[in-house]
């Protein structure tokens, strides 16, 4: 019996010591989930959908973005829960109050990881907006239950470093899946060992607007220059972290702070909103990637990008006039 306990302890220590991301997150979060609580967001916006707006973006926290493109409303990767996987604490609650949301046309899910595909959040949206369309890439269907929504799988299988996926036209909105350096799956081994497919970025085009939503992605200069050359992007929604040494490069599945700026430069987009930080403590402080990002923006190497980067607080909305 003593040997069994000893071996189990060894196994847990070995997994943790090996750098297994899931175990690291577990060790970092488990105590906090019991003894701490999610920070409230005061004064949530009561009119997220406005009249006569060309383009607006509301950051609901993490990777959840609510966009208004003229008369159309799109939400990306809705995740409203205060816990991740029922255990890990969300540090700051969602900045979007669904009671104030009175229109939604499209829900886009980039991949099946728990912080991007939240079953109950999509369930809430499907109850309130049964006519909305749910868009997701190949592979994610394996991780989706059935919702009372029009569920549309986009074909991202042709999306590669040098080419884009097959576009679909939904309510006059053109959605093109584009390359993302990220695995699918949801439960660790299916992600890292089996490499289940199912992660994408999105280009959304409506009237004269072109939006890029990266989802989760690592950095690949060839791929993002290709996207930048293929589309005239008005607004790029780009993840920052998680990363261990955020001012360095070479991360496989997420962009470090410096890589997210390089990605923005490759895209040649007019504006960028950083996301995917502040909600979940992955490796270090949940805001660490953003602190490094801010520092980098103040260096001469990236000063040309500074005026085009729009940093939002959780729950804050920006309206683009131009």
């Amino acid at each position: 019996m003593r040997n069994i306990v000893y071996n189990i302890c060894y196994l847990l220590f070995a997994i943790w010591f090996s750098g297994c991301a899931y175990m690291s997150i577990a060790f970092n979060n488990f105590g906090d989930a019991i003894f701490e609580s999610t920070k409230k967001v005061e004064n949530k916006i009561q009119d997220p959908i406005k009249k006569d707006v060309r383009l607006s973006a509301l950051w609901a926290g993490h990777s959840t973005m609510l966009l208004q493109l003229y008369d159309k409303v799109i939400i990306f990767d809705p995740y409203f829960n205060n816990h991740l996987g029922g255990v890990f604490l969300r540090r700051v609650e969602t900045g979007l109050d669904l009671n104030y949301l009175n229109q939604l046309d499209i829900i886009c899910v980039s991949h099946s990881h728990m912080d991007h595909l939240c079953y109950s959040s999509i369930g809430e949206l499907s109850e309130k907006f049964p006519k909305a369309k749910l868009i997701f890439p190949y592979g994610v269907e394996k991780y989706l239950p059935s919702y009372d929504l029009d569920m549309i799988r986009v074909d991202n299988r042709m999306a590669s470093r040098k080419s884009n996926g097959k576009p679909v036209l939904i309510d006059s909105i053109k959605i093109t899946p584009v390359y993302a350096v990220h695995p699918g799956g949801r439960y660790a081994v299916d992600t890292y060992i089996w490499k289940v497919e199912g992660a994408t970025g999105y280009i959304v085009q409506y009237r004269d607007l072109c939006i890029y939503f990266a989802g989760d992605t690592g950095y690949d200069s060839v791929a993002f220059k290709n996207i930048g050359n293929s589309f005239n992007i008005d607004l790029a929604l780009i993840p920052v972290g998680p990363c261990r040494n955020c001012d360095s490069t070479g991360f496989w599945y997420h962009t470090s702070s410096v890589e997210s700026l390089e990605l923005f430069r490759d895209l040649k987009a007019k504006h960028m909103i950083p996301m995917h930080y502040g909600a979940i403590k992955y490796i270090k402080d949940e805001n660490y990637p953003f602190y490094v990002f801010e520092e980098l923006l103040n260096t001469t190497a990236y000063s040309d990008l500074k005026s085009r980067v729009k940093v939002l607080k959780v729950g804050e909305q920006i309206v683009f006039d131009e």
Partner: protein
Amino acid sequence: MIFKLIITGFLIFLNLNIGLSQDNKENKTKEYITWGLMQMIPSPTLFQDTDGKNARVQFGFKWQIIPVNIAFKTNKYISNTQFFMINPVRRFTGSIEAFVQPEITTAEYKYSNIKSFGVSAGSRIIFPLVEYGENLCGSLGMKYTFRKSFNEVNKGYTGLEAGIYLFGGMIGLQYTQNFNSRTNYNVSLYIKYF
């Protein structure tokens, strides 16, 4: 020592796999091998061992095999029927399944006059409780256990099973109430990945 070598080797394999590749090509061979290895992880179980006068608890293991699972809430792109390799999402959002559980105790039964190895077969229904079942789901089922006595007479018995599960239905507690006075119940820490 062998256990440690296997674990260390597996972790090196796992980290090499993450580190050296950026492409997302699914590898079915690797998928089946790793899935097969993970099915060998047993569910630790406590079995009751009694002759009516004396009683004790016997430690052992069960293995979870699901030959077929039929889901109730699948989307239009996937089948509702799965065989052996069961996607947890289709399972915990609501499904019915047939299962087989080889079970063994680490020592012989002392009072029950039954052999340490047995096989249960039955069916259960899985229902979601929290977050579509991913954070918490439950199950109810019935099964028959094939187990012989020391004089090779079949001492099979039926039982009712109830379970509650976390983490996508992959870890949980299962309680079985047997209609058999010599091993009235068993309690398992349910472990099964896909």
